[in-house]
């Protein structure tokens, strides 16, 4: 358990370091918030007043800690462009993003692992080669292209699902699912290959072990050997890749959200980057970093717990 605690502490430390980087990054940028609110033509007096009002004359260290402690209490400040509370806006956006990521993960993770198991079972035979070829192809095509292709064939030609993934509070679950069907498909295709190939490689590595021979000599079938004896020993590397992909589903789906006009975090971030809304960018950066670090931390903790030597010491 000491290792798990260590890992969590490390994760928190990392998050703190990232928050410093994000804050420093926005300070280094030319111009400041007051400048971006008032624009190039602002008078020096107006700028000075606004700076005073926003507390920009305080030293950077003070501002950083003010920002950090406020963020820790859930107060992410106010968006400069529309004056709305950022935490509130992000809350809605984040739940949309998580909704999309959740369904994409629910389909892609089991599918990737299952395909990986099948590829191992029929190693170097046609099912393995077909799975490898298809998943490789899907990861090689740019995601926006897959998005438009699916949109063209499934939404426009066949008319099965809407091409725009707008969701709102007035919709029930089924309607929402129908709305996000296409982006979920695209995301699944994008993340499938990576996880499937890691599953295949990790299990094949374990298949060399002597205990696999023992299992085969017990008269177990190919799938029993893989599922009962190989898979439990391949969990650590698989979980690591799965978590990387889950993180991608949360923080990396900007392109997909834009293609399908989905009201998620990615679009929110892109909108405000183009408007130089620094507090929003900072808040989004912090949340993305937290998600990324959190998921990787979970992966490490699962790897630690999956090791029987660490779970059951002598």
């Amino acid at each position: 358990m000491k290792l798990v605690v260590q890992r969590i502490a490390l994760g928190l430390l990392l998050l703190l370091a990232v928050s410093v980087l994000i804050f420093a990054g926005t300070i280094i940028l030319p111009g400041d918030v007051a400048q971006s609110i008032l624009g190039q033509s602002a008078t020096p007096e107006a700028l000075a007043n606004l700076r005073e009002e926003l507390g920009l004359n305080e030293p950077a260290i003070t501002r950083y800690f003010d920002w950090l402690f406020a963020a820790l209490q859930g107060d992410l400040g106010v968006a400069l462009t529309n004056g709305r509370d950022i935490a509130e806006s992000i809350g809605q956006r984040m739940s949309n993003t998580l909704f999309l990521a959740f369904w994409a993960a629910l389909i892609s993770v089991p599918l990737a692992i299952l395909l990986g198991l099948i590829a191992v079972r029929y190693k170097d035979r046609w099912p393995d080669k077909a799975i490898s070829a298809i998943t490789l192809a899907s990861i090689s095509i740019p995601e926006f292209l897959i998005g438009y292709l699916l949109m063209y064939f499934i939404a426009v030609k066949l008319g099965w699902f809407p091409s725009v993934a707008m969701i709102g509070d007035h919709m029930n679950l089924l309607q929402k699912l129908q709305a996000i069907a296409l982006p979920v498909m695209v995301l699944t295709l994008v993340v499938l290959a990576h996880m499937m190939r890691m599953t295949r490689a990790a299990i094949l590595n374990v298949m060399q072990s002597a205990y696999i021979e023992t299992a085969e000599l017990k008269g177990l079938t190919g799938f029993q050997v893989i599922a009962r004896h190989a898979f439990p020993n391949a969990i650590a590397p698989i979980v690591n890749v799965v978590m990387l992909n889950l993180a991608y589903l949360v923080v990396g789906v900007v392109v997909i959200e834009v293609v399908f006009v989905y009201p998620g975090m990615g679009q929110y971030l892109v909108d405000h980057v183009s408007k130089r809304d620094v507090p929003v960018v900072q808040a989004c950066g912090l949340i993305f970093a937290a998600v990324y670090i959190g998921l990787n931390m979970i992966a490490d903790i699962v790897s630690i717990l999956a090791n029987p030597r660490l779970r059951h010491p002598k």
Partner: protein
Amino acid sequence: MSDNLLKVRDLKIGATVYPPGEKPHDIEIVHGVSFDLERGKVLGLIGESGAGKSTIGLASMAYGRGGVKITGGEVWVNGREILKTSLKDIRNLRGGEVTYVSQSAAASFNPAKKIMDQVVEAAVEQKKFSRKEAEARARELFAKLGLPDPDNIGERYPHQVSGGQLQRCMTALALCPEPDLVVFDEPTTALDVTTQIDVLMAIKEAIRDTGVAALYITHDLAVVAQVSDDIMVLKMGNTVEYGTTDQIINNPQEEYTRALVSVRSIEHEEKKPTPEPVLSVEGITARYKGLNFDVLHNVNVDLHPGQTLAVVGESGSGKSTLARVITGLLPPRDGEITFAGRKLSRDLAGRSREDLRELQMIYQMADVAMNPRQTVGTIIGRPLEFYFNMRGAEKRKRIIELLDEIELGEKFMDRYPAELSGGQKQRVCIARSLAAKPKMIICDEVTSALDPLVADGILKLLLDLQKIEDVAYLFITHDLATVRAISDSIAVMYQGRVVRYGPKSQVLSPPFDDYTDLLLSSVPEMHLGWLEEVVAHRKMESAGN
């Protein structure tokens, strides 16, 4: 003959090989072997590595390891030809009628699952027993095999029990489905001798009590003589001799079998100690970084010029640690090492080039001790350049001299390690250490990974070289037969201490301390009934106390 449990006729087995720089091609590794095994009997398959004994054992389960394929012949189990049956039938046979015990239980148990789950798996899967019945039977077997706490040991994970215990768990795993035949593949080879004797007895009693038949595969004729009814001697995939255990041991017909029976018959006259030892280890105490206990306690030994000191002990006794301290890889916490009349620095960095040159080392694994991308000539030539600054024709002449000394000759100069056999690789390592003209060589289990006859050749070579070069050996080994063959003095180590030390004749003569007695009496002897004698003797002693 029809009621034979296992009938093998003209079995041929092939494999695909991938030699470097050549096209992959098929070769035959077993060339038509035939034998019979009745119910309840034990057949020993014996031979050196490459004899095909494991391959034949696995063929009785219609299994080929890696790229191994059964290419011809017949294997009958319980009256049916298993090479011609369906995959489903073979699955029913494996783990049900025929089960397997491997050499390394530590590698053959799944580290992620509890022992009990793995022991009962085959029995339950083959529908021989319900899960509950199988667990009850497993606990019975654990008790019969002498495992501690048989009711609960199954709840542990493989890493939570010792090597010897795990090997017994593996035997329980094989016996749990009440098979007709068990294939034991070197089940005690990886164990210490004192552990081997217990596991051997447990296996023998389990075979007797359950009436199961067994194929017992090993390279150790003395071991197989204790458990088998018949013995088949194999060499390079051919049957050399096949007969009853009594006949093979006491009246071998073939030259090769006689060589196996008389292996380790090197005679070596003990030399008297000289007044001035070449190496003097005084009061060495050492521990590894991060550990809070000492692994060596106050070790004192001397090695005399041109002589051999054997350091003998089981795994964990500290014998390899002693070598690390002497070479400077592990600075001791206390004590002093005097070598060739001068005090050695505690750590490697403080030693002179002369110290390094005069103190050489040979390792157990010859193949990982050589750079696979260098030729034999380069490997042996390197110390000549490094210590003596030899170049060109002079160096070449000396390399050829050394190659002649190790009985390989000039033609080996341009070969790569991958083209050499295990024994040849070890010879090259010996030549490399001799190239430095050392006063002393530390030999760390140098014959342990080799077949008995090859190991014999290496020991003879080392003794011959000692006479020519007047070099001293610190010979680390767990094998008492090797100790007898080459040592002048012996240090017996146990749990980091030297428990017995002196000239060979004295150390190997009674009265013994308890540990040396246990160690000596555990070495399998080449006569029938030895196992029972030892076990009966020990029972009597413990009853007497």
